[in-house]
């Protein structure tokens, strides 16, 4: 068994496991107050085309190097609520618009929109890249 580590050590990309040991996502962001050592919870990416999900700190049972263990079953993890990020003033706008959906139709624009939405309203480009990478890795 790996040694437990502090929540302050958690990094984006760490695996998040359900109570049965199955992988339910990757850490997207850590919410808390470093100075006061208050751990609020995690934003986890469960797919490239979904918004991040929020896991309250109470559901985190153990943190080891590279892995966060939850008390939730995979089914319960799938029901987690959306992570509501604090709004920022920075916006990352794509230089071009339309993209993939422009040539293939409204149904497909929706796919892109699900991922693009947070990019257009939050300073979050790294997380988008991580989510896309996660999407491809889940395909294997």
């Amino acid at each position, binding site marked *: 068994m790996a040694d437990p580590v502090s929540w302050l050590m958690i990094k984006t990309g760490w695996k998040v496991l359900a109570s049965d040991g199955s992988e339910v996502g990757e850490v997207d962001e850590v919410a808390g107050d470093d100075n006061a050592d208050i751990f609020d919870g995690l934003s986890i990416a469960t797919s490239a085309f979904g918004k991040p999900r929020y896991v309250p700190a109470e559901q985190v049972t153990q943190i080891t190097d590279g892995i966060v263990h939850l008390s939730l079953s995979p089914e319960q993890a799938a029901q987690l609520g959306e992570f509501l990020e604090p709004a920022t003033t920075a916006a990352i706008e794509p230089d071009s618009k339309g993209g993939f959906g*422009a040539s*293939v139709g409204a*149904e497909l624009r929706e796919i892109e929109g699900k991922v*693009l939405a947070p990019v257009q309203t939050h300073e979050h480009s790294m997380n988008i890249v991580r989510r*896309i*990478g996660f999407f491809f890795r889940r395909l294997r």
Partner: protein
Amino acid sequence: MNAVEATAAYELWLRTQLGVVLDDDLALKHERMAESASRFLRGTYYLWLSRVQRKTPPELLQAPELLTVGDLHVENFGCWRDIEGRLAWGVNDLDELATLPYTYDLLRLCASALIAVHEQRLPLHEHEVCAVVLDGYRHSFEHGGEPFVAAERHAWLAALETAAASGAAAYWAQLNALPELAAPLPAEAQTLLRAHAPGGDWQPALHRRTAGMGSLGHRRAVAVGAWQGGLAARELKELAPPASNIVLGRDESPARPQAGPSWAPDPFVAVAGAWQCRRLAPDCVRLDLVDYAHGADRHLLRAMGFETANVHQRSSPDAVARVRAHAAQLTAERLQAAVEPLVAAVEHDWHDWAATLQGHG
């Protein structure tokens, strides 16, 4: 997974990597991907990588790694002039260079050849494709690699030279007729162009060029202008990191391999930052299968296998030695058995893609 989702994901990633993504060119790419399985394969390297990860036997998936072409296929070969002014032939586009198992290039080259056979554009039997590629590949390793240049040997290159000369007037007319570049080139690209102009007094006009398949959507410009009695041209293209970075979770900006015994590169290709500059001319082009002389298809495919090994031999001596030993044990039957499911997946994905596009047309 389907091709639509994978394409949406890849193009979102591309928007985070490039300064500008040209949506009109992406739309054109989507249409071209629906035209044939070959074009679909060329346009969806990201999807190919995913398929390889899921469908390839461990013995090929975990083969020794070295610097691979990545986006290799039978129409990613072309010709150029080497530093001696000789017509050289080989891999044309190295935009997706990445350190991967060497088998990735063999699988993709063989798959593209099999698809071309299915499309009746390569008159070979299906069962001989992998054997011919592997034979050429191993032969290059056995001889330490050797570039293809038109000199005392490789008479077939002379036919390419003749074709280039006869089509020169039309080629330059086409370049000159390209639309004017609407947006100014970034400073980085301008500096690269100045550094690789034929001369300091060259005053080219800048045109927008829509070309290629996999890199449609990237900014691309052509500088064309008279210099010392005739037209000269340079192409500038914005490069993205290799798709293997996002699909396989790697983090690599591989350097272009250097000239050496197994490679006679185009001395006019240069990369600075995110931009690549290369010479364009009738004898400096990518070649479609139809551009080659008929009747030498087996020889051509074998040469493609040989040239793939030429590129591979630009890696470190240790990596080359490991690959040489592994490739010596690889049989055409095992390669064929790994390629066939991948080809089936590509053709299935292409049918789905074409149906989706038609449904939304």
